[in-house]
């Protein structure tokens, strides 16, 4: 899951321009937009920040060519990186919806599709290819055992084979 401490941090937004419409609880930032909250970071050309009447952020919609998202996950300590033409981030449910050349990289395991829904809490992903014969591509990085352990493993197998052969000869 996403770092819990991220959620307690203030959200900072830097951009070239802002249009805020209080009646709609909507702030539209444009021009090199960068949003950060702890380890979470969104970079895009245009970002809509939808809030509630109390001014709390409910939804963030980032549009870019592509828009980028990254955040540190609790267990793996590595960054999850994602990009797409449109990234919608639902703050309350910690859900990410990537649409348009969507791509997610998590510890080297990558997923690309037309649309990816990514639950940052359960770390579950659901991907969908383009209509028609659109494909989903997933690349799973083989688990690499730590160096020492690998050598011993092979040695143990060799010894096992040797004892089997000896027993057969008797």
């Amino acid at each position: 899951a996403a770092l819990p401490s991220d959620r307690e941090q203030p959200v900072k937004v830097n951009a070239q321009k802002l249009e805020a419409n209080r009646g709609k609880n909507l702030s539209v930032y444009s021009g090199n937009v960068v949003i950060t909250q702890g380890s979470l970071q969104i970079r895009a050309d245009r970002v809509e920040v939808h809030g509630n009447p109390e001014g709390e952020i409910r939804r963030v919609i980032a549009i870019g060519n592509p828009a980028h998202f990254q955040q540190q996950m609790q267990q793996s300590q590595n960054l999850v990186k994602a990009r797409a033409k449109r990234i919608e981030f639902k703050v309350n449910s910690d859900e990410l919806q990537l649409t348009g050349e969507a791509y997610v990289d998590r510890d080297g395991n990558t997923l690309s599709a037309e649309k990816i829904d990514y639950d940052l809490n359960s770390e579950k992903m659901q991907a969908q290819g383009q209509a028609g014969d659109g494909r989903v591509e997933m690349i799973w990085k083989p688990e690499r055992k730590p160096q020492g352990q690998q050598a011993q493993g092979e040695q143990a197998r060799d010894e096992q084979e040797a004892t089997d052969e000896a027993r057969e000869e008797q």
Partner: protein
Amino acid sequence: MRTWLPLFVIVALISAVVWFADSPPPELLGKRPTPKAQDRAPDLVIRDARTRHFNLEGNLAYRVDAEQITFYQFGRRDRANLTEPRILFYQGDQPKWRTESRSGVAHNNGQRVVLRGDVHINELPGPGGIELDTEEITIKPRQEYAETDKVVTISAGPNRTRGTGLRAFLNQDRVEILSEVESTYETQ
């Protein structure tokens, strides 16, 4: 029907004259006063001023309290220099915006007001309304519009946005910050 016509024409003429006299469109305000003309003695000086300004319907439009108001009349145009003005702009019959600043200038019956020096604007009723701080701002009360090219900070509850250049369309509840935008949203 014939007898009504002259009466109708007379009434129409009178209304046009009254309208022109009260808030003539800028183009009809006549020539702008030259710097030399502006430099002459004021027509009126009010110290520790408490003034009330009403709109055409007779409703209170805004109140200006100031340490001093120095008033100049140039034909149809006028200018009021304000020292330490406190202005309260009304929306309907409710006070909506309160401004404080070091100085200000009101032009042509308050059609345009420029505030300068530690400008602080509060939305009423507080708390909960937005607050705006800048070094200078131009307000057009009748169009419910304000703009500045200076650095401006807007606070809305715990959230804060800072940038350079602002256009505020108050009747549409819409604000544009034109460059170098930095916003902070606190998580409650």
